[in-house]
């Protein structure tokens, strides 16, 4: 088993929580894991990415080689495209459809979605709307994790447990809304594939 995952977004959008959830689940499943993240300069509203590698064998490189990623998980549509050189031909791209516009030359959303739809395996969901329906506008990142979960080779319950653990210190309410967000994202994604 091997899952090479690229997480993409803009600084402050919560991709490190996605990474931490998958990381906790991987450890619970006794998988080997390397997860490289970007800190520092690029967090000020710049693009951020994380390489997450899960395997049942030891992982060598902290970085995923080009063309070898099984999955791109993006919380922002334009950012999902930035990492196409890493996506394998069989890989999936799961992205939020809501743009984060903090640059003057942000391209037209319709054009971006058109590019995403050219990718053979893609899932586009409106994570912000689903997050709101689940009770917390701020859990869009966890909705996206849910939407990507069918492509991660670990039992879904282990991701649920990871979310419980990750948000445990913030109280039951936050745990519940995030679990709802996770499940809603997953259902939406499964629905889109049928």
């Amino acid at each position, binding site marked *: 088993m091997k899952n090479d995952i690229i997480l993409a977004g803009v600084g402050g959008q919560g991709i490190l929580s996605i990474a931490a959830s998958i990381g906790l689940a991987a450890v619970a499943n006794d998988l080997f894991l390397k997860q*490289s993240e970007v800190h520092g300069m690029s967090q000020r509203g710049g693009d951020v990415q994380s390489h997450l590698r899960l395997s049942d064998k030891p992982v060598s*490189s902290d970085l995923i080689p080009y063309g070898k990623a099984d999955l791109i998980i993006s919380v922002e549509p334009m950012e999902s495209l930035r990492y196409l050189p890493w996506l394998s031909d069989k890989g999936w791209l799961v992205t939020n459809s809501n743009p984060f516009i903090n640059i003057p030359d942000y391209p037209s959303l319709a054009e971006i979605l058109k590019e995403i739809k050219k990718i053979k395996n893609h899932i586009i969901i409106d994570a912000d709307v689903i997050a709101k329906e689940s009770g917390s506008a701020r859990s869009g990142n966890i909705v996206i994790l849910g939407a990507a979960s069918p492509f991660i080779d670990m039992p879904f319950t282990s991701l649920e447990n990871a979310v419980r653990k990750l948000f445990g210190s913030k109280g039951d309410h936050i745990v519940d809304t995030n679990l709802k967000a996770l499940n809603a994202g997953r259902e939406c994604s499964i629905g889109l594939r049928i």
Partner: protein
Amino acid sequence: MKKLLLLGDEAIAKAALDAGLSGMYAYPGTPSTEIMEYIQSSEDSSDHKVHREWSSNEKTAIEAALGMSYAGKRAMVAMKHVGLNVAADGFINSAITGVNGGLIIVSADDPSMHSSQNEQDSRFYGKFAFVPCFEPSNQQEAYDMVFDAFEISEKYKSPVLFRITTRLAHSRASVNLRPGLPQKELSLPVDPLQFVLLPAIARGKYKSLLSSYESLRYDSLISKYNNFKDGNKRDLGIITCGIAYNYFLENVGDSIDNFPVLKITAYPFPKDLIKHITGRCKEILILEEGAPVLEEALRGILDDGIKIYGRLDGTVPRDGELNPAIVAKAIGLPLSYGQAVPSLVKMRPPSFCNGCGHADMFNSLIDAIKPYGSGHVFSDIGCYTLAALPPYNIINSCVDMGASVTMAIGASDAGLFPSVAVIGDSTFTHSGMTGLLDAVVKNSSVTIIISDNSTTGMTGGQKSQATGRIQQICKGIGVNPDHLRSIVPLRKNHSENVCTLKEEFEYKGVSVVIASRECIQTATRRKRSGNSMNNSIS
């Protein structure tokens, strides 16, 4: 066995705590910051009363750590690579004094300059100072090496350099922990003159440093981290340093059996193993993260030995960090590639946060300086350096911590008027204060704007030594109180702030304008606080 999911930085921090650390000293700097942060938030440190306050700069950090070592206890210092330039005097001389309690200096290099102004390779410093240097290739190794680094430090009475790079510092993996060791007891050096580098004493100490550096090479605490593995074929031998090994292994997988491989993760270089691999192979490929340190040593000036591939002949790019693709190409393996990035994808550079005081300060500065034309503003390192980018385009320098003040002095000496410096609060106490003293003593005609957001923002909002002290520091240094001004950088104060700045530009002496407004990130975090993450996975 207990396991934790840790960043490379955190693995080093945890190991130091488990190895009986008594004092951690650091100034923030990407990618090293999380070492101190881990120690500050760890329960182990509060249980065992480990000293763990930020220092004003890397030099004060290393000297405090040396004092801890003098008293017989284990100390660690962490900094980004350029911090070692600031700390170099203490570092190099600590090799000559030697240590008492174990002393580890972690220097985190940033090849490809993800968040830095250069990509210098700290291994040069190891050789320069004649101290042993470790360069772990993964998180587990980083953890384990710290124990041996303390041991070798005490055995040879030498500080130890611990060189890491961005990809290890900021990559997480699971790490097996060892049982913790107790802290050392207070015990002073046996020789009361050990730390007195008078020339007559230093000469003798330097001689013994030179000879002990040679014997280090063969000490098992070093040599166990340099391993040779033979291959089925003898055409191409591979030498990797540090994390370069991972990219090599990623590419060759099981066919590693075809290559003789020397994996180096500790220095001084294992001369015998290098002779061994070069003696049995036709050609050698050297993979190093950072500068071609080993490669230059091997080629020498004559470069007339075995055929060597590496960074110096273009097999590997001369600069920048390694990655799996670069290494694949160097070995001659086919490259994989996904799809090209569609042309509509735009760059998304970092920018000032909404509600950042620096931004409002710069807007006032832009209007105030306009009549004098461009080219008057020296700046420094921090979030405020973003004013070099559009739409501000207002600063003309960013060189090293504190250089805004001193470059403004020199340019003013040369006749530039007005000569303006913009410096952050943490950078000011790091290295700006001494420059301010120079300005006061010679009464330079400079205007120094201290953009005080009450935090060390760029590196994630660590406590700033300057907070609440800037006024007094400036007064104490001797700034004329009439030209020590305070402004609040808010849009509503814009015209007032422009006036204050213009007045001070026209003053022919030292002016300091303190622009104070709390960083929006730390302010928000302070309001929200209490969201710690539990990463214990035992």
